[in-house]
């Protein structure tokens, strides 16, 4: 990062970055725990994920406040302003990812409580979940290192999750056609799969913001980053 005349300003910017990445770490572990709880049926873990969602929300409020204060006090410009703007967007994405993790956990709990297991716990969900956690991890790594190349890769990886989601959907449709009694269970699993797929979308949003901070290009909705990632 560039040096400012005021050392304090540097520290404040660094502090915001540390806070958002710490929140990212919390959200990462939430998603992992949620997916693990779904596949292992660990009720305690599900409960823990649902409870820890409050921490994620508290983080969001705190970081937002920090960003507002920094803008008001220091009037950042250029790259510093972009960083603060990006952090305040990323914080929203992370909070949504946290919500999705909590949703996966509570859905798993519901599935578990219903007791019936007409549909086996698809290993595709785990696969899809692993793709999503990998994406989230790479997106946060790219934010830590301000690494545009990794960020582009993350945006490109979203396709794989979409494909995995569609595969799960097809499988579930077959179950539902064979036996209508599986429908309510299948619907719950679809919610979980959809939540995982959304986590991938949020991860690529985070990556887009990293590109924005480093290069100043707003690549949202343009497909530009995706094309470059495909070229690479």
């Amino acid at each position, binding site marked *: 990062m560039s040096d400012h005349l005021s050392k304090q300003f540097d520290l404040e910017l660094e502090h915001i970055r540390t806070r958002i990445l710490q929140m990212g770490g919390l959200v*990462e572990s939430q998603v992992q725990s949620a997916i693990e709880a779904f596949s292992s049926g660990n009720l305690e873990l599900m409960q823990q994920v649902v409870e820890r969602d409050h921490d994620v929300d508290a983080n969001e409020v705190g970081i937002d406040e920090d960003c507002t204060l920094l803008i008001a006090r220091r009037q950042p410009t250029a790259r510093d302003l972009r960083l603060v703007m990006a952090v305040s967007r990323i914080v929203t994405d992370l909070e949504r990812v946290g919500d999705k993790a909590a949703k996966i956990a509570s859905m798993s709990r519901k599935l578990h409580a219903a007791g019936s297991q007409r549909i086996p716990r698809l290993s595709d969900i785990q696969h899809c979940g692993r793709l999503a956690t990998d994406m989230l991890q790479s997106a946060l790594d790219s934010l830590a290192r301000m690494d545009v190349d990794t960020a582009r890769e993350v945006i490109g990886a979203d396709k794989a999750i979409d494909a995995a989601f569609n595969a799960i959907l097809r499988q579930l449709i077959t179950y539902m056609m064979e036996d209508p009694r599986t429908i309510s269970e299948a619907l719950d699993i679809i919610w979980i799969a959809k939540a995982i797929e959304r986590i991938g979308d949020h991860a690529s949003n985070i990556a887009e913001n990293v590109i924005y901070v480093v290069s100043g290009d707003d690549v949202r909705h343009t497909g530009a980053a995706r094309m470059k990632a495909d070229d690479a």
Partner: protein
Amino acid sequence: MTGPWAWFAKFLLRSVLPIGGLALLAGFSHGPAWGWAIAALGWLLLVFMHRRQWAALAAWLDSVESTERCQFPQAGGVWGEVLGKLAQRQNDQARRLEEVETRLGSFTGAMDAVPDGLVILDAGHRIQWSNRAAGAHLGIRLPRDDGVIIEHLVRTPGFAEYLANADSSSPFVLQVPAARTRVYTIRVVPLGDANKLVVSLDVTDARRVESMRSTFVANVSHELRTPLTVVSGFLEYFNDEGAVDAEQRKQFARLMSDQTARMLTLVDDLLTLSRLEAEDAPASEEDVDMADLLAQLRAEGQSLSDGRHRLEVICQGPALHGNRKELHSAFGNLVSNAIRYTPAGGEIRIEWAASDGCGVFSVCDSGVGVAAEHLPRLTERFYRVDRGRSRGTGGTGLGLAIVKHILLRHQANLSIESEVGAGSTFRAAFPDWRLSPGK
């Protein structure tokens, strides 16, 4: 005389004095005009020469900083002396630098060879240096992550707090997302005034062994508990006078003796296993007559099968060097497994043959078979493909573990091929030096 004055005197003596002398000589012989002319010319020549050397040196100094190398200036006279000293100094420095670099290189190499991850942080927790293992453990790689704050990369909840209040007495347990199934413990050691050394240790294997030990104890207790429950249940019945008639009493006694026999077998197997583990090699080895051993296995197999299976025994190989008692136990286990897992009317082939220089003992059955996903874990203690089945047929769950141990002591290799519903083949291949040359 040392210092600049010595050099100045040298300069006067070597350059100014000859020119002055020459000018004076010319002035006396050809007139003062010639003298002045020679002095001026000599002086000009002197200035020109010194400037040229100066330019060469300046160019060389420039080239040290830029990428293209320039020849080190060569000269004679005063400049030659100075440049010679400079060149020597330069070489000395280069050699010293090289020495330091090799030493640093071998030090870094040694640090990279350390299996523990090491990361050095400055006061602001920025990464200063890390070794190779840190890359595998924490995903930190130099030079990419030089100067990055470590909390930005290792984001596991709790790590930042641990780092802030470094307490080196209790380590932080980390499950890095990059390597999902692996577990690391992290310690922070203060380094110098403000720096910190982060040490990560891979404890995955230790944890696995720990959990294996606890499951083993749980399994043993469970296996012993089941027959004990049966026996104690019957004993309660016996206490209740009149509740059982003579006929029932007889039946209960038979069931109880079955259960105690099972416990005895289990304890025997456990003892065998611990004895096998305690000793590295069999106590005594001899040339075992395989034809004789196979005949014995056949007799035992037939009595266990009670005529329900067709047994075929083929012995084509030479004698095998090993401990007869242990080999008998290992082969016997394989044969009794084959008989127990093959439905009545099935076929079992026991074969000893030499192939490709190895001695191969194989037991091939047409039994129920084992699904491929169970094969790698089959020789684990108490591993059961089907929880209910093996107890029903009288196994202890230790047979294959014993077989594996005995074969290991005989440097033999156990391979299992199986297809569900079609049967299994257990094959033990012994190295050639265990085969005796004459049949």
